[in-house]
């Protein structure tokens, strides 16, 4: 067993884990943060995307021990003071989901994308989401949602993602 201490959605946590435990399983099974989902389990689909020290990663392809000392943000840590993050709001506004299974990962990746490039073109959005698969929407409304968030993003989103 290995001891890890990290911050998840602003909360400090410490645990003994098996070194082989994947970060996504740690989040879901140890911390009960089931908002982050496993889609493919082969590091293809991006449904499990979270932020590790402020950058998006696929949490099914990271060991929990690799996150020792790190700051992790999941979809559950995005809303602040009961208010949705601008990207969450945009997905609702533009109907950027159907079954919703890819959505936690899509949103986390979109937030990362907009952090790096606040005013992307449509092509840049599509390229930036290439690691996230959706079985339902055909991507059109997802791309629209990200562009909407870029246009309507508020000061609130900056604060929540700090």
């Amino acid at each position: 067993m290995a001891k890890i201490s990290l911050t998840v959605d602003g909360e400090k946590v410490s645990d003994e884990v098996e070194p082989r435990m994947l970060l996504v399983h740690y989040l879901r099974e140890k911390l009960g943060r089931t908002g982050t989902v496993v889609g493919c389990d082969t590091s293809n689909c991006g449904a499990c995307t979270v932020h590790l020290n402020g950058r998006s990663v696929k949490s099914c392809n990271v060991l929990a021990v690799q996150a020792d000392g790190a700051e992790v943000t999941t979809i559950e840590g995005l809303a602040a003071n009961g208010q949705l993050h601008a990207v969450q709001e945009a997905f609702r506004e533009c109907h950027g989901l159907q079954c919703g299974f890819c959505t936690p990962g899509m949103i986390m990746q979109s937030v990362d994308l907009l952090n790096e490039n606040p005013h992307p073109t449509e092509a840049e959005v599509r390229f930036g989401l290439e690691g996230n698969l959706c079985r339902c929407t055909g991507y059109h409304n997802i791309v629209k949602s990200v562009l909407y968030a870029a246009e309507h993003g508020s000061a609130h989103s900056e604060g929540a993602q700090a």
Partner: protein
Amino acid sequence: MIPAQFDYLAPTSLEEALAALAESDDAKVIAGGQSLLPVLRMRLNAPELVIDIGKIDALRGVRDDGDALVIGALTTHHELLNDPLVAEHALLLTKAAHELADPQIRHLGTFGGALVHADPAGDLGAPVLALGAEFVIAGSGGTRTVGADDFFVDLFETAVGEDEILTEVRVPKRSGWGAHYEKFVRVAHQWPIVAVAATVRLDGGSIAEARIGLTNMGSIPLRARGVEQALVGASPSEDGVAAAAERAAEGTSPPSDLNGSSEYRQHLAKVLTRRAVAAAARH
């Protein structure tokens, strides 16, 4: 999918990591883990010990060293992609990093890790070969340097020995050279069926020098030397480079698999070389 059990060490110095490697006879080194974790999860490998070098900060970053750039093994693909020194002196790496995997993988995956993993379809092998990079490898007896032509040994095998760690890669500067990485895939963020890494120097409107690497045209990345020779003096348009590009498959025996036959890959190599060289000459 969950890896088999292993012990885990996260040393903070290279010396500690090398000592742990030497002591164990069944250890694997993990950097970002973006190549190794899928292997462990599918249980294609089940080492007793995993040594995490991700906390050895000395292995991170890009620095200017006169006529070469030195890229630390732990530099992530994302850092490589956004590094101004790399864009200025080794544009081919910037271009390849842009095509490599997806943003999430690029945030964690490392330059050194991907090269040592040595997947024949990996996107960095052909570019480092084309650029004539040198590999600095540390072992308990000190460090040694291996040239690009001797680094890749076979499928998933490099010159890095069991008890050694790749610490940095020296890339000779090719400032002002145009570059392009032309990758052929059926769906986004897939491994290339074939890809071509091209970097060229123009002089007076024609190609003065060209260096071409091929991805997934054999068990290791290959240089297309016939094309390189034939390109000298060529006009840098698609038509102008077409005859030289016809030599791209010379001496290759690419694999056949579900993505395409060996013959198809040889055909692709020619087409992609033509496109890659012409695009490289435009940048």
